[in-house]
């Protein structure tokens, strides 16, 4: 055998150094983007536009938390937008039908509803062994269809929602909207959960090598089921917060955001093939996409370009991951050259 290349981590050039930590490169990109836009239009960093930015990104970032858990396991959850739609309208209806109901109770019911809908996905995927892509594509339509039937052209308006609840989406504490605080706290909890607990590491293990996960004694089906239940519950919470943020909800609420969420997660460094990524990175991915679309607005770029740019960013992120995987593959192959 040829001599093994010594410690291969060295001397891989600036590109690898840049990508070694996805979080670092995301922060850098966001900083550069903000700097450039601010130079061109100083209003970009005004308190109002910063607040808008935070509000815009918060609900996506929240959903990204649940989606990260799912994608880490090499699964996918497309149904989240429909769960948000149902629970947003449900929250509004609760305020209309039960005047004086506590906002906490409404949030609790929304979360519980999301959890139950997530459990439907969980049962079909973990025990029915139907691929997640198919299952959640199906429930995406089923949940949305049920929502249309139930809403039946009605609409919840801001006047129906108590001001104290709407304050979640408007008031700030220390300059940061309450909505954003909620997401930040959950981000910290998820980050600790995925890093510091055995259960959290199991999500990584399952996505990295499902067979090895079985051999390590992990109950893979149960872990996958819990993942989809968490994703559903998060979507339920996002539904209640959607109402607080926008005040107005009809049957089309949140339609299509599942793709933005998945794009953010992948841009944020959670590998679509599982096993790699962090919630912090994923939320930074959401922030990057959000800053990017604000930039385009501030620079008066036509809105249809925004979607194209979003797609381009997804492809760049996936290409970067593929490039790194390729480098690794090359390296392992060199080590095999003894035959």
């Amino acid at each position, binding site marked *: *055998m040829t001599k093994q290349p010594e410690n291969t981590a060295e001397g891989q050039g600036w590109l690898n150094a840049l990508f070694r930590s996805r979080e670092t490169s995301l922060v850098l990109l966001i900083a550069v983007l903000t700097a450039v836009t601010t130079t061109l239009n100083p209003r970009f960093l005004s308190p109002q536009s910063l607040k808008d930015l935070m509000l815009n990104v918060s609900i996506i970032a929240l959903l990204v938390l649940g989606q990260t858990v799912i994608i880490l396991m090499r699964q996918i959850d497309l149904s989240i937008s429909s769960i948000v739609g149902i629970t947003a309208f449900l929250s509004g209806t609760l305020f209309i039908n039960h005047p004086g109901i506590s906002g906490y109770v409404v949030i609790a019911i929304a979360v519980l509803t999301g959890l139950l809908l997530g459990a439907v996905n969980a049962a079909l995927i973990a025990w029915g062994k139907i691929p997640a892509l198919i299952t959640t594509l199906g429930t995406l339509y089923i949940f949305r269809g049920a929502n249309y039937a139930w809403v039946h052209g009605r609409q919840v308006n801001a006047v129906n929602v108590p001001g104290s609840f709407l304050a979640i989406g408007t008031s700030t504490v220390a300059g940061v909207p309450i909505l954003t605080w909620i997401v930040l706290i959950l981000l910290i909890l998820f980050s600790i959960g995925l890093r510091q*607990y055995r259960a959290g590491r199991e999500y990584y*293990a399952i996505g990295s090598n499902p067979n090895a996960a079985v051999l390590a004694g992990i109950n893979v089906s149960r872990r996958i089921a819990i993942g989809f239940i968490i994703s559903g519950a998060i979507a339920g919470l996002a539904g209640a917060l959607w109402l607080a943020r926008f005040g107005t909800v009809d049957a089309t609420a949140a339609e299509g955001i599942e793709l933005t969420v998945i794009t953010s997660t992948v841009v944020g460094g959670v590998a679509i093939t599982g096993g790699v990524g962090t919630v912090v990175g994923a939320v930074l991915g959401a922030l990057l996409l959000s800053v990017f679309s604000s930039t385009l607005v501030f620079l008066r770029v036509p809105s249809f370009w925004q979607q194209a740019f979003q797609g381009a960013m997804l492809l760049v992120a996936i290409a970067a991951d593929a490039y790194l995987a390729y480098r690794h593959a090359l390296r392992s192959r060199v*080590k095999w050259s003894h*035959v």
Partner: protein
Amino acid sequence: MRSPTIELVDIYKSFGSTRVLEGVSLPLFPGEVHSLLGENGAGKSTLVKIMAGLHLADKGAMRFGGKEMLFRSTAQAQHAGVSVIYQEPTLFRDLSIAENVFMHRQPKTAYGWIDYAEMNRTVSQHLSQLGVSLQPEDPVLGLSIADQQIVEIIKALTFEAKVLIMDEPTAALSLEEVKRLFQVVERLRSKGVAIMFVSHRLEEVFAISQRITVMRDGRVIGSGPVEKWTTEEVIRKMVGRSLDALYPKEKVEPGKVVLRVRSLRRAGVFKEISFEVRQGEIVGLAGLVGAGRSEVARAIFGIDPLDSGEVLIGDTTLSNHAPQAAMAAGIGFVPEDRQQQGLVMEMTVMRNATLTILRQLKRLGLVSKEKERQIATRWTQRMQLKGHIEEPVNILSGGNQQKVVLAKWLATEPKLLIVDEPTRGVDVGAKSEVHRTLSQLAKDGMAIIMISSDLPEVIGMADRILVMHEGKLTAELSRAEATEEAIMFAATGQVGPRPDQKSKATPNGKS
């Protein structure tokens, strides 16, 4: 005598109607390396999986810690102190070495968080004890197979394994790496661990074992301390079955050279492969599983890339390296896995048989059903296929499916036919029909390369036998020289003159 750490008693196991293990008993003693040897399909891997808790034996028991039991899950085996290292390490490539070692049982701090510091410290200790220059935080992605096995061994060590089973751990290692692995094994042995070592490499087996057991066809054929064995004796026991008269290859005077390959190389898979095949010749390609036989065939046909080397059909070099080019040049390839690669199971026999020549069936751009039927009928009749050509393939028996695959390639009227394990999983009757067909094709002037793990089949059918070992050709045997011992010698990488050269007078290999 000391009592064994674990003892298998009269283990039986069947998969469907196939009996894999028939009354296997095997003790593993503390501080002893016990090697398990046998041909492909002798039942070694199944035995390993039963001890690992992946399979449940149909009958029999394991005596372990004063109890008779069978492991019902991998977790149960691990907790009992039985660790298994598979040929292909089963690791989480995205996670660190330390996390791989401790997955699902990480040490915790007082707050219930994972104690990464403790985890890394423990793994770091083991790494330096084993003399490996890796860091516990290093990701597994990018580690060599040897280093991945070190990770598996550390996993076993942290389980405080009393029994360590290694299923062909050296198959993918270089000499240096094997040496290091053996030092580790030696250290474990001195600590009193009972080790089972499954390997095809005889010199390694003799170097490391204290006890050897040979299996054949699901039974233990011989077992005893290493001093009582010789290499020849092991090989004789591994192969020793009678060669029956199933194989009717007729003598054909070889014609022009059809295929010539020169120094084929694919990094990490095979190298220095040169040989030629003539008209009317059947060349057998023998070797153990993983020796690279199928890979060479796939590369010749253009499915897998070549790093260097030349493939010539007649006098023309096959420059465009793709299956289409190989087919156009006159190569047919019948792959090993009929279901996945050879047949579209839901389509009819007729459709399958003409898939390779759709272009010839075109009339006004559409497939002509008459021509399709005509050609399918011609070849399936010649193959003596049972069943109607308008029936779907998946209702046919294994033997008949194999005939459809053959018919499909014969329809292209190839000059060279490569068949990979043509009779695996088919019954004896169908087997001899496949053999008769191959023989007839050779007689008609076709050149054939036959890859087979079935030694009597290779010996009976091939005019010449090429033997591969770990990606290289280690022997070329003429029909007269071909015995099971000679093939096994070359297939297990034994080089130089064999001490039992004269024993080839007993072609059935019985000792």
